[in-house]
């Protein structure tokens, strides 16, 4: 037969096993396989003959054979059956029709009937019964031979024999105990624990208990359909996804979601402890994995499905970089390298495969990631954390065992199935389809082994991220529904707005803290100020209770007021959340802003506003303290410089377009560098050029900041006064000061009065003078008039008439008694009067 039409290099492989479906006859058996059972029976029979000869010294071999031929007839019966069996196989090997008849009609028919009549669980139990019956029969025959009595009688006398032999057995067991049992017990005990099984009624959690993650929940619900009714997919030629990875920041409800899945389906829920596979001895982890999956298979048969949940799956570890491989770009499946993590609006999908690969390789080789956005600090911990994490837990083959169990060979299981059926020439039954839904949760997906995440093991990867605003509102509503509160829908909406990265866990904590705050004040009902106080406590920690000296307090207040003012005037994309001059562990004061809505793109104007806010402290200190400035601006300048650098060199938000990142890596120089590509000079010039552009940009923005501050000098003094008076202000209070309105804590009306502003100015001059002289300010901190005094209206504490009357020029109705005269100020001697005290 001519095979090769074209010249072939190397040897041609002409063998190869045909596929099962192509072979109609049975595969020929080797001679040994044909005869081995007959030989075994012959050996058994000879043993019986020798036993007869041993029993009576007079009996010769031939007579023993003749005697045994009468007594041991069953050996000949078995041999006869085996001969018939072998003849059957021989025909199967030569006649396709005969073989197909047996395969499809007889065994196939039996199999079909079996499947139709019995469930997987019933067949499993029947298999066990058959196994035990067989065992008992064999034991009976063997015992009968030993004690020379019929098998049935031997079986009846077996308990007696065992009872009689117990002392001897115990003696042996006693010897063995110290040798073997201690190891066995040790391993047994070590392989226990870490796995908890919850049966359907144990779990009360439902999908309705999971708030704020509706988009993920919808996807997860789909898996319930598959678990309940796998035929939906399988009948159409697909397969049921068997694994889900939920990843995301801590506290976002991953565990709760897995629990809800178990609660909804009514299947057993097996919770695998993160520490379950940390083992002291080699092999214990493997034993645990095998034991776990044995249990899972059994539960799956018994209940028609089972859910196993690996919490903190990163504890399973990984096998290091080698197995992670480069892979094709975009193949990261949610745990991509940095190059893919912040791929803007398109990712790399619009590029050709070659380009994607090149960019990916370079990104990994250089270790350069696109810079994380400064304000998104709390969300940057997940992606691109490197691939060498984890690896601490598991180890010693545990992970490999887990991988093999998750998608190993679908091997036949059970003694009867593997041995008896094979001995009878029947194929072992394939294992039933175990419905095991594997769920894993982690906040470090990059620490997972790549092999664990491949389709077939973990088919679906869902990010359980920070809840959207709607999700947070739903979560707040859920937790507030459990306590008494006076919050309106608007306030809950506001709360969701000012807690942009809140998770289920932090929301629960915040509500609880608010409740504790209320209880501390002797109330049962949570009010809005309780919530704000709890939020401040949670975000800033307890204040250090350090009192600034007066002039320093004023300086810090001016510093923070400048930040807040510029933020208020320029940063439209964020709202001031809190402004404080209370000293914390690593700051003197702070102005924190939050995004009012979920926004996923960042713009040049926003970055520019961020720089203005950062530079406000330097500009303000120079302006208010006669060109003097403190080192407290260092971190502000660092932030401003960083953002400006990225704007100029990376984001195309400066005067040039090209990316400094690429220019540096490819040594092509930088616009304005003037040098030819390559060489130290060009690189230096490029850097100089870039630094100059950054400095120019910052300088012009500093000038702009000064202008803003100069135009708003009275507002800065007003907010500084409010900060000095109250130390910590919420965003609403800051707005109240600037807009001369009523805030939750501060009444901003007095700050609209020029006379009061004049007092503040005088106080500032006194403080600035004290700053220069390193002395005490000559003037005390002015005190704003109480709310009831403004406009002559007795307000209820939050009365709008007071706000309405303060029109900024102090000409509202009623006497304008703002503050106290500078000299006879009845301020407390400690110099920190509180207008509301």
């Amino acid at each position, binding site marked *: *037969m001519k095979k090769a039409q074209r010249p072939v290099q190397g040897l041609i492989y*002409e*063998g190869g096993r045909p596929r099962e479906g192509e072979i109609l006859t049975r*595969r*020929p*058996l*080797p*001679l*040994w*396989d044909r*005869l081995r059972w007959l*030989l075994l029976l*012959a050996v058994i029979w000879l043993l019986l003959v020798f036993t007869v000869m041993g*029993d*009576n*010294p*007079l*009996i010769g071999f*031939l*007579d023993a*054979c*003749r*005697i*045994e*031929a009468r007594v041991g007839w069953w050996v000949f019966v078995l041999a006869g059956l085996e001969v018939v069996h072998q003849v059957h196989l021989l025909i199967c090997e030569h006649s396709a029709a005969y073989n197909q008849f047996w395969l499809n009609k007889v065994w196939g028919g039996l199999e079909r009937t079996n499947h139709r009549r019995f469930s997987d669980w019933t067949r499993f139990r029947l298999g066990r019964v058959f196994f035990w019956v067989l065992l008992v029969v064999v034991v009976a025959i063997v015992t009968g031979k030993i004690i020379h009595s019929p098998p049935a009688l031997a079986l009846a006398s077996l308990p007696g024999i065992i009872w009689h032999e117990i002392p001897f057995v115990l003696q042996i067991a006693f010897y063995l105990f110290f040798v073997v049992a201690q190891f066995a017990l040790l391993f047994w005990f070590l392989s226990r624990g870490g796995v908890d099984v919850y049966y359907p009624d144990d779990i009360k959690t439902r999908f309705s208990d999971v708030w704020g993650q509706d988009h993920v929940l919808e996807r997860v619900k789909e898996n319930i359909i598959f678990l309940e009714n796998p035929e939906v997919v399988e009948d159409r030629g697909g397969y049921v996804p068997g694994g889900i990875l939920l990843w995301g920041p801590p506290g976002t409800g991953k565990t709760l979601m897995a629990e809800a899945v178990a609660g909804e389906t009514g299947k057993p829920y097996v919770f695998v402890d993160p520490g379950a596979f940390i083992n002291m001895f080699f092999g214990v982890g493997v034993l645990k994995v095998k034991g776990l999956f044995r249990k899972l298979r059994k539960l799956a048969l018994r209940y028609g499905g089972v859910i196993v949940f690996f919490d903190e799956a990163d504890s399973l570890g990984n096998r290091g970089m080698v197995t992670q491989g480069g892979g094709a770009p975009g193949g990261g499946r949610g745990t991509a390298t940095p190059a893919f993590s912040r791929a803007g609006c398109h990712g790399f999908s619009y590029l050709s495969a070659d380009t994607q690969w090149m960019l990916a390789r370079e990104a990994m080789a250089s270790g350069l990631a696109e810079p994380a956005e400064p304000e998104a600090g709390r969300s940057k911990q997940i992606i691109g954390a490197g691939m060498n994490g984890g690896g601490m837990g598991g180890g010693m083959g545990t992970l490999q065992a887990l991988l093999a169990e998750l998608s190993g060979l679908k091997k036949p299981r059970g003694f009867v199935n593997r041995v008896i059926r094979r001995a009878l020439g029947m194929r072992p039954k394939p294992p039933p389809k175990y419905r095991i839904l594997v769920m894993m949760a982690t906040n470090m997906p990059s620490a997972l082994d790549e092999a664990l995440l491949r389709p077939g093991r973990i088919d679906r990867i869902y990010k359980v991220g920070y809840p959207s605003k709607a999700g947070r509102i739903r979560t707040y509503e859920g937790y507030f529904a459990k306590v008494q509160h006076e919050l309106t829908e608007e306030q809950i909406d506001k709360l969701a707005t000012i807690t942009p990265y809140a998770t289920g866990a932090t929301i629960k904590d915040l509500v609880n803290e608010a409740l504790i705050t209320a209880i501390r004040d002797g109330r049962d009902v949570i009010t809005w100020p309780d919530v704000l106080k709890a939020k401040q406590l949670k975000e800033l920690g307890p204040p250090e209770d350090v009192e600034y000296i007066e002039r320093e307090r004023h300086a810090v207040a001016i510093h923070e007021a400048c930040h807040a003012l510029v933020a208020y005037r320029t940063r439209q994309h964020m709202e001031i959340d809190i402004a404080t001059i209370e000293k914390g562990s690593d700051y003197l004061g702070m102005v924190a802003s939050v995004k009012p809505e979920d926004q996923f793109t960042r713009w040049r104007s926003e970055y520019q506003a961020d720089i203005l806010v950062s530079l406000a402290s330097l500009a303000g200190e120079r302006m208010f303290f006669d060109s003097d400035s403190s080192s407290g601006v260092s971190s502000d300048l660092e932030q401003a410089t960083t953002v400006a650098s990225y704007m100029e060199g990376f984001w195309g938000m400066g005067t040039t377009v090209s990316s400094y990142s690429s220019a540096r890596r490819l040594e092509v120089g930088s616009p304005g560098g003037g040098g030819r590509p390559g060489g130290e000079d060009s690189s230096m010039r490029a850097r100089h050029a870039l630094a100059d552009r950054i400095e120019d940009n910052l300088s012009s923005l500093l000038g702009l900041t000064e202008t803003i501050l100069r135009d708003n000098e009275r507002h800065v003094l007003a907010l500084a006064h409010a900060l000095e008076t109250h130390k910590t202000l919420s965003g609403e209070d800051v707005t109240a000061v600037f807009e001369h309105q009523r805030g939750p804590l501060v009444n901003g009306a007095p700050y609209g009065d020029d006379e009061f502003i004049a007092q503040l100015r005088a106080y500032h001059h006194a403080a600035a003078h004290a700053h220069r002289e390193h002395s005490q300010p000559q003037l005390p901190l002015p005190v704003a008039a109480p709310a009831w005094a403004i406009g002559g209206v007795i307000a209820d504490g939050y009365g709008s008439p007071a706000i309405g009357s303060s029109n900024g020029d102090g000409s509202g109705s009623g006497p304008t008694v703002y503050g106290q005269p500078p000299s006879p100020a009845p301020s407390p001697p400690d110099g920190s009067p509180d207008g509301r005290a």
Partner: protein
Amino acid sequence: MTNKAFRPTRGLVGGLVPLLVVILSSVGLSACGAPQYTYVADSAAGTYYKVPYGWHQISQQSLDQALAAAGGSGAGIWSTAFDAESDPSASHFLAGNVTEPFVFAEVGQLSSTVSNELSYNMLRDFMLPVTSSTREQEDEDGFPLTDFKSLRDETITASLGVHGVRETFQYTYPGGISDTFDEDVLTNADQTIVYFLMVHCTNACYAQNENDINTIMTSFTVGSPT
């Protein structure tokens, strides 16, 4: 095209298998016939003998009755009997005119008195009077058999201290029919157990079956083959 990969390798095992099959088949075929002898054993006492396969074993109940009728007691004694007659009967035990050999064997415990006094002559006279003094004594007591004629008087020494006698003799029954008795009477080294085997039938019968009877008598084994 046949794929050689599917062919089993014909190695040492492959070569030995046909040979084994031939041997086992021949052994199997030869086992198809009936055994030559019936092998009798008292495993507890380690006593063995064999009789031709066609001879019939007397049921234990009949034998016990026959022993009781003869004045003996079956209690604590292992006993067997075979009859070559086509119509086997326990009554042939000590009966005259038995035309086919009758085999009787027993193993019994001796009392301490007998054990102390046991001699070869006592063994010779174990079942029937053989020594002259006993015969005279029995004659006086009216023993019915007469015309004693000794054909063989041998002492036997076997392993493990087993010893005894083999006696072959003839007696004439009152009807004038003469029987030949062949006896093996053995005792162990401690002389606490007596092992007894006897075959008897008419003289003509004995002469006719002498070979078989001799095989039976020599097969009588205590502990190990003699």
